[in-house]
């Protein structure tokens, strides 16, 4: 339990009022149209979606997770958090292509890239999956806040979950994405400032950098300062092949769409940027802030380790960064710190409420149930969907203990087996909707086999995660590549339209030739373009 003085509560109340009111102020803009409610009218300068990318991916459970990997692996743990590097290439490749498609969501993009029944099946599947995923993330992050409030104030877990998610829902319901992105900017600034203050405070509390280094040397733990302290090529807890797999997954994944769960919130921010250039810079700089944040946290956790080197329980050392703040900051600043934690929390909750509602409204209600719906009606459906997501997240949050293991597994399998198909759909014209659909289905079966069933029956040994990734990728390809070639190419009219609009990267020569034949590409371009 932490004791709050009057000044601490003052900070908390002022910050919450500021965040909620700041969101509500944009009520009039948010209700104008579905484009405003979900994309802020596609008119944002790059720094607003950038702040939103950063704020969204700083959730209540993020410092716990980063604390856990750094305390366990030392500075090597930075690479566990490095998957956000997919934005390094995405910002200048898939972001550019996706922004030019103008699709509201990744589900909608499927019907622009593919055609016919396969495209509609993909759109429905991705939309339904995203509604579920956003509700799940809301429950997951919400219960993390519940647990933090239990640790701080002794509240029951449900109270922190329901109280803060409901506060956040006020401005998301009122102003939609306008409220989300404006509050995210404010929250991002508060959160980043506090992360710097607490991390430096923690380093000073541990005696400063020299004292930390000396303490680690005395403990025989100096390897913790080496981010490249590999345990071997394939052996130990940090093998070189794991590192290389992670780098390939993260960096090359940027050529695709949907290669990471994080792609989906990013896709919304890409479309909300006012130009292609703004979209690129927003994604690049938002992720750069995440990488800087992770390094700040990492050194603070190293400092924490030098103070408390013998903690064995994962649950205990995952609280490292919170403990630095709540145990070492002076009275008055503790409330400031908690207010920043609330900011971190609200920014993630608001994004997933609005994002889940966008799939429910645009891809399910508008596209499948009522294509002729008016803008006013769609905004209201957006609000009702937001409310359903909120209530659903309470249910998920309260049953999270029982389902977390299963759902983390589900997240992992979806990332592993569809990584390559998610790239192929962007860079290869011949890859069709049936190939992509079959990759999702094959991945579902293969992952159960490779990860659980075959090891259980001793057909396969229990494999390290990097090997599971490569095996699932190869086995999956043996299914979806033949299916792609055995089924028809996509309708050439759709492909040409998509090509002219989005100018995708990779192998699109037959489509480009057809676009040229139809006179849809400018002369200068046709003459000078090579054979991609």
């Amino acid at each position, binding site marked *: 339990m932490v004791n709050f003085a009057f000044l601490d509560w003052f900070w908390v109340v002022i910050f919450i009022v500021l965040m909620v009111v700041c969101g509500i102020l944009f009520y009039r803009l948010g209700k104008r149209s579905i484009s405003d409610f979900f994309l802020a009218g596609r008119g944002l300068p790059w720094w607003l979606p950038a702040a939103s990318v950063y704020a969204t991916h700083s959730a209540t459970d993020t410092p716990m997770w980063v604390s856990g990997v750094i305390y366990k692996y030392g500075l090597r743990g930075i690479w566990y958090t490095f998957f956000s590097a997919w934005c390094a290439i995405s910002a200048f490749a898939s972001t550019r292509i996706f922004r030019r498609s*103008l699709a509201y969501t990744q589900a*909608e993009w499927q019907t*622009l890239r593919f055609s016919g029944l396969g495209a509609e099946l993909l759109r429905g599947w991705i939309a339904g999956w995203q509604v579920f995923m956003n509700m799940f993330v809301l429950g997951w992050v919400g219960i993390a806040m519940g647990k933090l409030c239990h640790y701080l104030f002794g509240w029951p877990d449900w109270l922190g979950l329901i109280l803060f998610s409901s506060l956040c829902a006020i401005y998301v319901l009122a102003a939609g994405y306008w409220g989300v992105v404006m509050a995210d900017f404010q929250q991002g600034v508060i959160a980043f400032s506090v992360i710097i203050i607490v991390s430096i405070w923690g*380093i000073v509390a541990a005696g400063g*950098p*020299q004292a930390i280094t000396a303490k680690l040397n005395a403990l025989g733990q100096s390897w913790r300062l080496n981010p490249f302290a590999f345990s071997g090529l394939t052996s130990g807890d940090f093998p070189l092949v794991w590192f290389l797999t992670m780098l390939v997954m993260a960096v090359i994944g940027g050529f695709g769409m949907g290669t990471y769960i994080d792609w989906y919130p990013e896709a919304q921010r890409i479309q909300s940027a006012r130009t*292609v*250039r703004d979209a690129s810079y927003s994604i690049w700089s938002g992720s750069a802030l995440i990488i800087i944040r992770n*390094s700040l946290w990492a050194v603070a956790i190293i400092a924490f380790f030098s103070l408390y080197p013998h903690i064995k329980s994962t649950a205990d050392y995952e609280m490292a960064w919170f403990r630095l703040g709540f145990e070492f900051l002076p009275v008055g600043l503790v409330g400031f710190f908690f207010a920043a934690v609330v900011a971190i929390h609200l920014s993630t909750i608001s994004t997933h409420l609005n994002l889940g509602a966008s799939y429910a409204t645009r891809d399910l209600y508008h596209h499948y149930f009522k294509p002729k719906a008016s803008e006013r009606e769609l905004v209201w459906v957006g609000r009702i969907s937001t409310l359903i997501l909120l209530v659903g997240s309470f249910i998920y949050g309260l049953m999270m203990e029982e389902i977390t293991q299963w759902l983390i597994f589900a997240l992992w399998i979806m990332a592993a087996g569809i990584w390559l198909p998610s790239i192929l759909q962007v860079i290869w014209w011949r890859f069709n909707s049936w190939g992509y659909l079959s990759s999702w289905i094959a991945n579902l079966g293969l992952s159960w086999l490779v990860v659980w069933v075959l090891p259980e029956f001793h057909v396969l040994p229990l494999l390290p995660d990097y090997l599971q990734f490569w095996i699932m990728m190869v086995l999956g390809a043996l299914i979806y590549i033949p299916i792609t070639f055995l089924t028809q190419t996509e309708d050439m009219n759709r492909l040409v339209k998509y090509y002219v609009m989005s100018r995708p990267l990779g192998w699109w020569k037959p489509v480009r030739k057809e676009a040229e034949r139809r006179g849809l590409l400018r002369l200068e*371009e046709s003459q000078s373009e090579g054979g991609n």
Partner: protein
Amino acid sequence: MSWIKKDWTAQQADKWTKEDYLTFIISPLVYVLLALGIAFSLLLLWYGWIILGVSLILLLIMIKIIDPKLRAISEDYEMKQKKYLEDLEKIARWEE
């Protein structure tokens, strides 16, 4: 950097060129160096400041390479966007 193109027409900018491929290489490198540079600098290790400095120089080079092209793409595309949005609505409303 005279071999880096600065003046782009919309037609030229629509193509994927060496400027894009260079950016694909420099950009992840900047992320890696930023991650290491910040961590080492906070620990007051001298090479941390050097790594951080290199990452910032590379970032400036990257922007110099890609920004003129991104500007050209954006200016041209914004003119066509209204028409494309109308087409998008037709698909959403099953009119196409």
